[in-house]
């Protein structure tokens, strides 16, 4: 396949960015999107041009590090995959592909397609944990049975990879899907219920301070989420938040 890539180039957080156009030929349909970027970068280095910076690590869809906005969609046109799992067979010979970083006020650009998502970490520092010391003196793991459906739903929420596609997709750059996934995981488990009130209040407060927008229930986040995190989690967090606010 021969393709034309329009890629966002930005030297650093302070610099003004712009699109650059790069033709690329002999793209195999079996390549992943990032492997195609590797080929392009090898060519750029040989030509003496600065290669395109982008975040990536595990390349098997689980670390959440890759983060491109491809043809107007977070992680590109395929569903339930991250960019590293997107394959070139989803594109056609002659296509022009536009590649941008995840854009949000809370995610400043580091360079080119790499953005700073440490706002997500800070939201978790505010309450994304259960306060138990790692002493090894906790009770036996089977001491509290947990209903299978609750355990499964907690697991489903916990599979969030923290990539930020939900924020990049949302017209308000809201982080509700991400935050609610974490709140839900703990809210569904007996171990998490003890500090549920403080957790949801603190995490939502930090989320607002980071400059994420409000949720207006468009549901775009759920559509673009590579792990299929459900909107139910947002509803659950809203309930948790309401009852915590009344108690709190």
């Amino acid at each position, binding site marked *: 396949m021969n393709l034309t890539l329009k890629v966002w180039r930005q*030297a650093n957080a302070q610099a003004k960015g712009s699109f650059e156009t790069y033709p690329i030929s002999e793209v195999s349909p079996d390549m992943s999107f990032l492997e195609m970027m590797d080929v392009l970068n090898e060519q750029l280095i040989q030509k003496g041009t600065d290669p395109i910076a982008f975040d990536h*690590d*595990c390349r098997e869809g689980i*670390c959440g590090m890759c983060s491109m906005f491809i043809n107007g969609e977070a992680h590109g046109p395929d569903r339930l*995959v991250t960019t590293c*799992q997107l394959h070139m067979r989803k594109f056609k010979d002659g296509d022009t592909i536009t590649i941008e970083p995840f854009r949000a006020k809370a995610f400043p650009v580091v360079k080119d397609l790499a953005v700073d998502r440490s706002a997500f970490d800070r939201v978790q520092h505010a309450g994304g944990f259960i306060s138990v010391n790692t002493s090894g003196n906790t009770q036996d793991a089977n001491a509290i049975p947990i209903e299978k459906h609750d355990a*499964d739903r*907690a*697991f489903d929420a916990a599979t969030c990879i923290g990539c930020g596609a939900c924020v990049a997709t949302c017209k308000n750059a809201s982080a509700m899907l991400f935050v609610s996934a974490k709140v839900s995981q703990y809210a569904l488990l007996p171990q998490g219920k003890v500090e549920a009130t403080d957790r949801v209040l603190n995490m939502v407060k930090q989320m607002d301070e980071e400059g994420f927008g409000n949720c207006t229930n468009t549901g775009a986040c759920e559509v673009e989420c590579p792990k299929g995190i459900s909107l139910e989690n947002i509803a659950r967090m809203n309930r948790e938040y309401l009852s915590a606010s009344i108690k709190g």
Partner: protein
Amino acid sequence: MARLDSKTPEGPLSEKWTQHKSNINLVSPANKRLIDVIVVGTGLAGASASATLAELGYNVKTFCFQDSPRRAHSIAAQGGINAAKNYQGDGDSTYRLFYDTIKGGDYRSREANVHRLAEVSANIIDQCVAQGVPFARDYGGLLDNRSFGGVLVSRTFYAKGQTGQQLLLGAYSAMNRQIGRGKIKMYNRHEMMDLVKVDGKARGIIARNLVTGKLERHGAHAVVIASGGYGNVFFLSTNAMGSNVSASWKIHRKGAYFANPCFTQIHPTCIPVSGDHQSKLTLMSESLRNDGRIWVPKKLDDAQAIREGRLKPTELAEENRDYYLERRYPAFGNLVPRDVASRAAKERCDAGYGVNKTGEAVYLDFASAIIRYGKEEAHVKGLDENDATLVKKLGQEVVRAKYGNLFQMYEKIVDQNPYETPMMIYPAVHYTMGGVWVDYNLMTSIPGCYAIGEANFSDHGANRLGASALMQGLADGYFVLPYTIGDYLSDDIRTGPIATDTTEFEEAEKEVHNRLEAFINNKGTHTVDYYHKKLGKIMWNKCGMSRNGKELKEAMAEIKELREDFYKNVKVPGRLNEFNEQLAKAERVADFLELGELFAKDALERTESCGGHFREESQTPEGEALRDDKNFTFVSAWEHQGAPAKAKLHKEALNYEEIEVKTRSYK
């Protein structure tokens, strides 16, 4: 040849750890506040150690090269974590887990460390559940287990095919709590560039901020290396793109011995290579071997027809299939350990029975599991067990619930539906049992410098059993290092903060700066990846699944030559003080180019076959690995002497008090 002291405590094996914990020196809570510890890496070992050290009261500084600690490659572990809980009542015990691990490691691991690992395994599960890790449960609400390769009990706890992710997020959450309290200072997008020693002790590191490119000095009373394994020396592996040996290699160059570098695990079930553009390989969890049956065609003609696309695997009659693991190893069948399964796949493919275009793939087939589960479901639901369509549908649902994410991943990569046609798999480099040599306290040969998790060598011998990496990472980080490190730090309560404006730090920083500057100024002709790929080819062809003296010698010479060419001709774009991924990579590949040579040297020295290390000169008439216990029951620990080829060998003798060393048989 010097002999090494592992500092294993005296006493009966099952009491060593308890007694040791009671006897070692402690640091009082008031004094812990005066002590700083650096942790490099935030996988299961690094994250759990950081959290626990901070809970205990130490001031922790943690470094990772990713943009968040949650991205470390432990996140990608799929299948599960072992623990001797015996919840299934199938006869499991601490002793049995210990025994299986020693035997699985082909009698090349340190007995006392492995026993300790088995002892603390049950605590890990308790701890993780208390942290909110959502393990799989049965309908009664209790924890579910599955079986893994090389054992005859079900002791593996799991969270679908994402166990590593859930465990890492658990450890990350424990870290977050301490970051919130200010007890851990987290440095994301930072890479350790060198270790700084003062008076022979580890006293800090030089780190590079990967966003600004600036070098930083960080002092501490102890440095913990938790930066994982070195599988990426092969270029293609199941490791993450950024996984590297650099932190381990820097300390090796500063005096830490590197142990058993040639002990590498080639995992049997990975998605085969599709072309030259390939940047990494993807694992399909070993748990799939619980339900998937591995086969190739019995006849060469059929194999050829399949390769050429004239025949579909589903069309091949049962009697024309060779379920070679079930044939060769009736007792363990598809659940033989990884090294055995990988070699068997290579043997069949080398003999011409491979099933993909390149001839390097075998089938992993779920058809019979789907029917088995489907019939069970139909029976439970009171439906017609003889309705083939219904049974298949029900069976597929069960398989989807167990392995859904793995099947989806396979389909996205290969563009084939594994519910309908068997998966194609081939072995790939996955894990490195070798690593930095540590004593019983997990301290390296540099005082105050520790290595934990995959970065050290101690627990898996020459082959690691499935679901044991997660166990070891968390055991080291949560339950071992935080206690043993106190014994060393108890001498440091009056030391005060480590100053970084000293000659030692200045010189180390200058050396790093010069090295990086040389890369930028080199302006050569070939990219960093060009060299990395070449190194990978040498490693895979001559230090891969089977090795021989002649090729290992060639590998050593070729790697040395490649390294010299790299320094002359590598081209690194961009500048020093900016976000420069190529520069970071150049430094990592430079270290791989040294490690690769030591790896080959170690493999050459060990003329026996054991575990994942198969020397063609040492095999039984049936082609099984042949150990040489008389001459090789030791750990090879290499001391750096200026160049990999000159490394000096130290031997740590392995003594087995509780276990009778036997020939490993899975027949």
